């Protein structure tokens, strides 16, 4: 991340028991990406919203800007966030 202000808004929808979710979050932290975290196991409304936006009943789902990414798709995440 060269310029902090350039980073699009990142939201991670996850569940506490999901191994992929914790790895995607630690990856983002490691790369210095700021993100908002939603625990969809606790927040039913957010879970419904995630399913509606991504068409997916599976986690993790990342929202980079308005673009939903299902699963830990590292190359796509890197590309959308301009990470090298």
């Amino acid at each position, binding site marked *: 991340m060269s310029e902090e202000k350039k980073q699009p808004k990142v939201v991670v929808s996850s*569940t*506490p*028991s*999901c*191994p*992929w*979710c*914790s*790895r995607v979050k630690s990856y983002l932290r490691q790369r210095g990406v700021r993100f908002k975290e939603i625990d*969809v*196991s606790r927040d*039913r409304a957010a*879970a419904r919203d995630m*399913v509606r936006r991504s*068409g*997916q*009943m*599976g*986690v*993790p789902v990342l929202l980079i800007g308005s673009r939903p990414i*299902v699963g*830990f798709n*590292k190359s796509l995440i890197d590309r959308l966030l301009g990470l090298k």
Partner: protein
Amino acid sequence: MNYDIIIIGGGPAGLTAGIYASRARLKTLLLEKNITGGLAATTDKLENYPGFPDGISGMDLLERMRKQAERFGTEIKEFEEVRDVKPLNKRIEITTVQGKYSALSVIIASGSEPKKLNVPGEEKFRGRGVSYCATCDGPLFGEKDVAVVGCGNSGLQEGEFLLKFVKSVTFVEFLPRMTAEKILQERFQNRKNTRFLLNHKLIRINGGETVSSIVVRDREKGKEEELPVSGVFVYVGFKPNSDFLKDVVKLDTSGFVVTNGKTETSIPGIFAAGDIRSKDVRQVSTAVGEGTLAAIAAEKYIQGG
């Protein structure tokens, strides 16, 4: 880059091999196509792995194994998928999507992934009600009726996890009996909100946007029944991650790597450990044992027998 040992796969077998190889002061690289942890990391709670009387989450245990391998010097590269393995003049060349490596010995620990059902609706509704990871997606099915297909250890364990969230679980098992450990079966005796359909075959998964029902057939009576469910969790066994090994080492008819008791494959210097081996029992504890065997065998091989 040249190494003494290259390990392919970062599950329990690969990480254990890494621990032993590094402690033998061999220059060790572990290549993982995804993130380390493997299938075992998706298990909610491992209760049969010795040393943890109260159980341990798969994620925790595998994270510890990774740290342990790294502590002794195993170099781990994640998101490096191996494309080709080629024995070449006493060395073995490995090609990944990103580059080329070479080693004196290779340990294959690429593991397995959940088998699909191959029924109509499965692909269409994948991520829309069909899941292979209850620990990931289970919490999204709060107060819903779901089905678990397969009554082996994984099916019953994950079904038990799902019951924390869902309204009911219907278990569908192709065989006339459950294959899970008895202790797991006992937990479902007199348990509310569960139903067991043994000797039943799942025929079809129906729905609109997401799953709304499944159709099962009684294999004895031939009768079909439609059950309204919002989720289908599939635990019907494993298939090997061995596409990159065709024409490299001998595979069995299902694609698992054939080895002898010393984890040697058909090619000298290439060993295999864990779920990828052709064998009967696939447990974290056996993977760990085989990772140990393979690393020690590889060390001996490098030293010239």
